[in-house]
């Protein structure tokens, strides 16, 4: 009888502990706040306008530009080769193969970086990989690539080299050879979908 009493007591106390402990949700793919913070601090998620311009000039298939602005804004002006996924439609099933994939680097951009940063955070939390932000957005694109500032001579040789590269890039994006946006986005292929989180089949079925 005594053993039964002790065992009951142990079980009930374990139950009490379980009842008191806060309910937690683990996820094998989602990141917690701390991990996100670390990622942000490392700045590995930023792609500079120079890097992007270079990739576009070299026709680098690794990058996929994603324009998060509205369709009207996109139609007025967009970067070559970009596709338009308006921010509010980011998680529509239609776009899932683009934003949740492993084949290419997605580069989000908007006018500034508000939309792209939010989109990056949301996709990161969901465990999607290969998403990046165009540093400074279209505003920075304009001030660095389209209308690059002439560096003062005190900035040294490196800055002057950059400037020259930017002038070349400007020629590429604004000159006669500028890629037609409308035709560029039609051949943005659907990348390989990332492996989905597996659900376990169970019970007796």
């Amino acid at each position: 009888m005594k053993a039964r009493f002790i065992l009951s007591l142990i079980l009930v106390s374990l139950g009490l502990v379980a009842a008191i402990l806060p309910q937690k949700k683990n996820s094998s793919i989602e990141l917690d706040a701390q991990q996100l913070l670390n990622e942000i601090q490392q700045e590995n998620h930023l792609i500079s306008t120079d890097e992007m311009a270079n990739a576009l000039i070299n026709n680098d298939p690794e990058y996929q530009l994603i324009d998060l602005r509205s369709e009207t804004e996109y139609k007025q002006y967009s970067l070559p080769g970009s596709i338009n996924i308006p921010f509010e439609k980011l998680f529509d099933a239609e776009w899932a193969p683009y934003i949740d994939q492993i084949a290419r680097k997605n580069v989000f951009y908007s006018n500034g970086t508000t939309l792209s940063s939010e989109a990056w955070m949301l996709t990161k939390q969901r465990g999607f990989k290969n998403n990046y932000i165009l540093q400074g957005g279209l505003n920075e694109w304009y001030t660095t690539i389209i209308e690059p500032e002439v560096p003062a001579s005190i900035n040294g040789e490196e800055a002057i080299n950059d400037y020259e590269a930017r002038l070349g890039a400007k020629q590429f994006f604004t000159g006669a050879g500028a890629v037609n946006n409308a035709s560029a986005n039609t051949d943005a292929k659907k990348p390989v979908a990332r492996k989905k989180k597996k659900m376990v089949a169970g019970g007796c079925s």
Partner: protein
Amino acid sequence: MENKGNKYMNPYLAGLLLGVVLLASFYLTGRGLGASGAMKSVVVSGVDKVSHDYAENSHFYSKYISNDQKPLRSWLVLEVFGVLIGGFISGALSGRLNLKLEKSPKITNRKRIWMAIIGGALFGFGSQLGRGCTSGAALSGMAVMSLAGYVTMMAIFGTAFALAYFFRKNWI
């Protein structure tokens, strides 16, 4: 009659052992235990063998036939095969291996056999409708706190209690 060999384990200890096995199953595979599912695999593959086209066209069997997977090579079938071996090992260790028809002395062997077949048929039928038996639906379901598990458990035990009086001769 009674010999020292055939004592059963303390039920609470056996429950602890069973619980640990169940927990291991969840931790390793993300699913609980099951039994009736394996029997279904046997039936499905039998029907499939007799007439593949028939099985393919049936709403029920076709769910369990896919081209790349044989129904008999499934997780539950292997698990139930293990149950057979595990039960045998335990029976051998405790000296309980012998062919025996267990029944109340008040009924004939023939009646016991018919009762077993009818009871089995009802259980088999019910486990398909209820998506799992005592192990897959009730026990595993209760461990993950699924509503289906608790409802199925209460339906099974409630009915058995309610009908116990009418079938008392079978057992006592």
